[in-house]
């Protein structure tokens, strides 16, 4: 077990992958001398050189598409997009090509590409740097969506993602980079959700940046005598229905904590699936605690008001068990 920050864990994962497989390379804006917008790739240029730690111009569509092409050409690119908002510039390549080529080609051309990007709010970066679109991306067939919430997942998810023959998007919550945690450095599965805390009374479902919110809420709830089970989804596409439904089957209540906007977010999908498959198990409506439907404001108090807070989760859970 080593103690690392989330940032270091991502960096070690990249380093390790590049050592294990020479087809792996990192490409994106300022991943080289700058060290990555959030310092993730610091030091990698020195070890692997500018060919494999490849700075790109500001051309999101082209370099994401080039990642697709390089994957088709036998390499294993890791493409870094600085922030989820900028990924919109590359959405044509992501949806119309990466997610679609295997199908359109009748199974001939798969795209073993990993795209990493920073997501989420909480650092007063305002409306063009703070979106949480990972749940929205999970709408797209052909993609896998990973949302590491822990240092161990940040360290362990990359290699399996690179082994996946299909395009994988990894969303790293910007608020997590400085968080410290343990990891033994081994690979983890990228298929299942994890129960991060067991409980009997209510299932709180979270992922990425909202896991800490859910766990904090669970502590508060415990003080009130409500025993919450906390699920970390880990993967938003495909969703691990079995773990979700298994837990809800025991607790009969569910609260979903999602930093994305409420309408049409991943929380809606989870709610719909629970209702479809376990309606008669439910003792209360499935509750959603999501971000307010507003572009994220700069001012600290407004930003915090826009985001799911432990108190909101506590209130929803309390309501569910009442």
């Amino acid at each position, binding site marked *: 077990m080593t103690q690392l920050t989330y940032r270091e864990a991502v960096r070690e994962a990249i380093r390790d992958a590049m050592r294990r497989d020479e087809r792996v390379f990192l490409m994106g804006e300022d991943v080289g001398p700058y060290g990555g917008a959030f310092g993730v790739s610091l030091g990698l240029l020195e070890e692997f050189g500018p060919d494999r730690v490849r700075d790109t111009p500001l051309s999101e569509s082209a370099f994401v598409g080039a990642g697709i*092409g390089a994957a088709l050409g036998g390499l294993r690119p890791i493409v870094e997009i600085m922030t989820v908002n900028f990924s919109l510039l590359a959405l044509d390549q992501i949806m119309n090509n990466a997610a679609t080529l295997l199908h359109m080609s009748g199974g001939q051309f798969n795209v073993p590409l990993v795209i990493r990007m920073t997501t989420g709010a909480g650092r007063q970066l305002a409306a063009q740097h703070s979106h949480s679109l990972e749940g929205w991306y999970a709408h797209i067939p*052909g993609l896998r969506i990973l949302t590491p919430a822990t240092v161990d997942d940040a360290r362990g998810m990359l290699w399996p993602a690179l082994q996946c023959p299909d395009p994988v998007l990894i969303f790293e919550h910007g608020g997590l980079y400085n968080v410290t945690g343990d990891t033994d450095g081994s690979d983890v599965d990228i298929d299942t959700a994890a129960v991060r805390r067991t409980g009997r009374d209510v299932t709180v479902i979270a992922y990425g940046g909202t896991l800490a919110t859910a766990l904090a809420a669970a502590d508060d709830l415990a003080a009130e005598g409500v025993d919450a089970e906390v699920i970390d989804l880990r993967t938003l596409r495909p969703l691990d229905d079995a773990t979700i439904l298994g837990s809800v089957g025991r607790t009969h209540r569910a609260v979903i904590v999602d930093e994305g906007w409420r309408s049409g977010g991943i929380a809606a999908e989870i709610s719909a699936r629970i209702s479809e498959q376990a309606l008669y198990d439910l003792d209360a409506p499935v509750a959603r605690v999501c971000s307010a439907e507003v572009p994220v404001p700069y001012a600290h108090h407004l930003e915090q008001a826009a985001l799911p807070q432990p108190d909101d989760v506590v209130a929803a859970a309390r309501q569910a068990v009442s």
Partner: protein
Amino acid sequence: MTTTAPAQAAPDTAYRIGLLRQMLRIRRFEERCVELYSATKIRGFMHLYIGEEAVAVGVMSALTPVDAVVSTYREHGHALARGLSMPSVMAEMYGKATGCSHGRGGSMHLFDAGTRFYGGSAIVAGGLPLAVGLALADRMTARPVVTACFFGDGAVAEGEFHECLNLAALWRLPILLCCENNLYAMGTRLDRAQAATNLSERAASYAMTARVVDGMDVLAVADAASDAVAQIRAGHGPYFLELRTYRYRAHSMYDPDRYRDKAEIEQWQQRDPIDALTTHLTDAGELDEATVARLESELADELDAAVEAADRAPVEQVDDLTRFVYRDPAGYGTTG
């Protein structure tokens, strides 16, 4: 940037007749496709290449099997010239299981791993980033491979064009950029889409070699393409060919073609690449009517067989609808 093709050793007769044969083969294939479209055997959008055959045939003649091709939705000609089998292309037009994309793609999305034909993209300019990436992989692994990417004059206005030309030049990638300038993007004439209409000058502004070629002259295209490919393989980075050509038919089967004069079409037809080469070879004594007749009859046989096979071919199983969404079956997991 040079604008005239340099003199080259005359290719031999068999080679020239081969080029003629390829062009005729594409022409006859598409003429039949029009009939099959009317007969509702082929559906969806269908974009004809008639008039532009010299471009595909000339460029493909310069490539080898290790090279890669990225194409557009107007790609029957590219596919056939690249060596996709006619039955597999025709079956794809029908949406049959034996189609080169197993019926998923149709006319706009022909794919073939065997010939490194990476589609068949219907997002204008959307193939360029893929081609850049393929070339990057070759460059990074020091493989002596060329990626040829086709796109139209209309694609030049797209942001992806700009980003990709810069990347290709910046990284000195082994990529052959084939701009099929047929003067129109659907109904929009080049000078209504571009403030500066000289497309090879635009390409040269990214610090790469760029050259205008008569896209109605298959020998000129073939010469220019083999020069370009040689340069690229020698490590000189990207090469841009502006291939000046013209589509005789409407943009697609849906297009009433209201935006241009019939006279303009007829003028270009005067310079038809197939007629021109036929005349040229006949005048040079390299071709006679009997040979033409033999070619036509061979091609008709090939085409008949392809149509017949497509007619008879099975369709994909409906159970396989979601088969190619993920290669990794674990990815299937979303409750359908």
